[in-house]
Each structure stands twice: as structure tokens, then as C-alpha cells.
């Protein structure tokens, strides 16, 4: 039978089954159909809006003093650098980057490219199809106005999807992170103490403090972080253990990069990881990548452009 034609028998059976199953939610909680929620992936966070916690935008953003932190450029790097050395170099690059100033009523514009493994069985090692998309986001500077997102799949550039931000189910948070600490030690404490929605199954290893710091940093850097604060983030990450450097990676936009990788058995029991990608020469942040396992790619995000504009939808 062609299933595009109505099949009253099957249709009614599905209705009956779904109603019966749904009704179990009205009964006392005696059973659990599926195990508790495991740890969310950092990659999933990167695909969504940036951090959920509010960071109030300060008046007079232009007054942010870059000189609050002066990073001493690390000595000439050997052929193989440690994660700490690379992150300190990234901190130096960040603090030397001109600041983007913004009024609370403006918007942070972010242009990005993403690649997702759309397999329904990533956990089982499934690969592909890979879905590449180009996205534009306008995030409210103070998190008090609605933002906007536009995006299209690379193989369907004429089908642009426009949505109001935050999406239903998401919090509206500032897109401009001005009030973060500028001192690395304070930033480390800040990242370590940020609340997150990680819920691990009872049998999973506990998340480490180091992973929490890495996770929080990844969320914050999805919005716009001013130079002094971004520098402090990388300097704080330089104090995290368990990170490794992986040369010769490629971001979603095809740019060559050097990765700082954080593996986590708690999040990826089959050996996966999350990683920041940096420009191998300038040490500027390029984007993020995640693997479910050593051989299963999950997602990659490349940030192409960040600017401040007056209206949601306005191109810089």
C-alpha cells in the first residue's frame, strides 16, 4: 500500500497508542521509560544561542580599558607548543585586537559557517550526510531586545530561513559580554562557578572542574567578548589541565587551524572531544569543532565576521 494514501487502521492505531502512552504522564512517577538526561554537548551549546546567564552591559563600553591586562608575549615558541603556550599567545592576540564599542540598544552581528553530521546514529559511529550552512545572527547587545537569525544550507542558498531570537525555549541574554572579569584568576573562578545545565546519568563519571571551565568559555565566546575579557578567558584556560594541541585542523569554512582540544569521558564515552580552533599564525580564534568519538565527526562552527550594527537584520 502507498503510505501517501490514508490508512485509517494504522492512523487510528497510532493515535490510540500515542494517547495511551501520553496518559502515563498523568500517573504518579513510578517508572522511567528512558534513562535520565546525560550531559549536553558543548557543540549543542554552540549551535544554540550563547550563554544563558545574564551579564549586564555597562554604560560607557568605550571606556573599557585595555590596559587592565598587559600580556607579555610568550617567548619564541618551539616547533611543538603546549596548550598553555598556545592559549597565552591567543590571549596576547586577543588583547591587541581593537575593541568593538556598542550602545545597549545595538546588535552584535555574527556571520558564521557550520557543518553538522546529520546522521541519526552518531553515537553508534554513523557518518553523514554532512549539512553545511551559512548563518547570520543579530544578538541584542543588552539582551533586552529581540534579535534575528538568517541562514541557508549551502546547497540551497535561495531558501533563506529567518527567525526571531531568542527562539522559543531559549533565554534572551546579552550578546555583548562587557562585565566579565579581566583578571585571569578572577576569570577562572568566574568560569568555574557559572551555572550550567549539565545533568549526568548516575553511572557516568563526574564532570571535572577543568571541563566546566572549558564548557563555560565556549559558551561565552559565542557572543562578542571584548578584548580584555577575551584575553582573560584564554589566559584562564591556559591554567586548565588535560588540554592538548592538535595542529593541521580545518574549520567549517575550510581555514587551516591549530586546535586546543578537551577530551571528556563523561561527555563522550567513546573518546570524543571539543576543541577551539585558532589561526596558526595570528592565534586569533577561528571557531570550534566536536567529535563524538575518535573517528566520528559531529559538528564544526567557524566564525567569519563580528560587527556592531544599529538594527537587527542590518548588514555591516
Amino acid at each position, binding site marked *: 500500500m502507498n503510505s501517501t494514501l490514508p490508512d485509517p487502521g494504522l*492512523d487510528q492505531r497510532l493515535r490510540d497508542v500515542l494517547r495511551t502512552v501520553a496518559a502515563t504522564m*498523568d500517573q504518579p512517577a513510578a517508572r522511567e521509560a*528512558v534513562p535520565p*538526561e546525560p550531559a549536553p554537548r558543548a557543540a549543542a551549546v554552540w549551535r544554540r544561542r550563547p550563554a544563558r546567564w545574564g551579564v549586564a552591559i555597562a554604560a560607557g563600553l568605550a571606556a573599557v580599558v585595555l590596559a587592565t591586562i598587559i600580556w607579555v608575549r610568550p617567548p619564541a615558541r618551539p616547533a611543538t607548543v603546549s596548550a598553555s603556550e598556545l592559549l597565552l599567545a591567543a590571549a596576547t592576540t586577543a588583547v591587541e585586537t581593537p575593541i568593538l564599542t556598542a550602545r545597549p540598544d545595538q546588535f552584535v552581528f555574527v556571520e558564521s559557517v557550520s557543518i553538522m553530521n546529520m546522521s541519526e546514529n552518531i553515537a553508534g559511529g554513523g557518518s553523514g550526510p554532512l549539512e553545511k550552512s551559512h548563518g547570520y545572527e543579530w544578538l541584542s547587545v543588552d539582551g533586552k531586545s529581540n534579535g534575528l537569525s538568517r541562514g541557508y544550507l549551502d546547497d540551497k542558498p535561495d531558501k533563506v530561513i529567518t527567525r526571531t531570537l531568542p527562539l522559543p525555549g531559549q533565554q534572551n541574554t546579552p550578546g555583548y559580554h562587557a562585565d566579565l572579569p579581566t583578571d585571569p584568576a578572577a576569570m577562572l573562578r568566574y568560569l568555574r562557578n557559572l551555572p550550567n545545565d549539565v545533568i549526568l546519568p548516575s553511572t557516568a563519571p563526574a564532570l571535572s572542574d577543568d571541563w566546566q571551565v572549558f564548557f563555560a568559555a565556549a559558551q561565552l565566546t559565542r557572543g562578542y567578548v571584548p578584548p580584555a575579557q577575551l584575553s582573560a578567558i584564554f589566559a584562564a584556560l591556559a591554567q586548565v589541565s588535560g588540554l592538548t594541541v592538535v595542529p593541521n585542523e580545518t574549520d567549517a569554512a575550510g581555514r587551516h587551524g591549530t586546535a586546543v582540544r578537551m577530551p571528556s569521558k563523561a561527555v563522550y564515552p567513546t573518546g570524543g572531544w571539543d576543541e577551539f580552533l585558532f589561526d596558526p599564525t595570528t592565534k586569533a580564534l577561528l571557531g570550534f569543532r566536536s567529535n563524538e568519538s575518535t573517528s566520528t565527526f559531529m559538528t564544526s562552527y567557524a566564525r567569519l565576521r563580528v560587527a556592531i550594527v544599529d538594527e537587527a537584520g542590518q548588514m555591516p
Partner: protein
Amino acid sequence: VTEADTTIDAPGIEQVYEEHLPPLRRLAFLLTGSREQAEDIVQAAFATAIPRWEQIGKPVPYLRQAVVNLANDGHRRRARERRRFASPEQITHLPEVDEAWAHIQRLPYRQQVVVVLRFYEDLALADIARLSSRSPATVRSDLHRALNRLRKVLG
């Protein structure tokens, strides 16, 4: 969007919570297969709606969209966990229902969502497409595949 939704005229939070919490919990449960996660998702949906309640206008469609989005966020995490844990327990005392429910849960997630929204929420394909941010053609294709598969295993 159903007729019932469109006739709501700026209802208060308490009224919507009281009247729509149970159906939203049921929808979340069908999308996640987890009572605990369904509870969390519905609470999170209300938490995001409350600060912008005055701007939402039609809170029930908004909340339903939030539940679908939040369930989708958690989908891949659950996929990994299903591999690590034993098979789900029986949730009713009706073997034929549990068997059919197990087959629905084994569908690829996008097909599972379409089946739930079509046969539990009674939404039209265009509404399902809008709710899941996909094209009507791909939604129709998923429904076609899901029904073919279910017909084979349940027939």
C-alpha cells in the same frame, strides 16, 4: 496552530499553566520518552516564556514550539544514552501498546517527531513543517517513510 490556540486572548500565566501543563507534559514525554526530561523541558519552556509573556500574544503555540525545540536539543544526547543503558521498561500494561510505542521510538528522530505531531497533536503537515523549521516536502517524506516502516512492523 489549532483553532483552540487562536481563540485564546492573552491569557494569564497561571491560567495557561493550569490548563496546558498536562498536555505539554504529555507532548514532551512523547518526544523524549523520558518522564524526568519531559518535566524539565516543560518547566524550561515556561521559564523562557514568562519574561516575555506580554510580547508572545499566543502563549500555547509558543510553548509547544519551545517544547519541540528543547526536545530536539536533547535528542542527540539521548541517542548516546540509549546505547549505554538497558532497553526502556514497559510503560503500560498493554503489550500491544508497548510494542507499538517501542517501534515508534526506534524511528529516526525526525520521523518520530512527525508521527507524534501528526497523530497526537493532530497537526497538518504545513503546521508540522512550521513547528520543526523544515519544508513541508521533507515532512511529508518523513511521514511517508515512518508509516511504511510502522506498517511493516505493526501490520
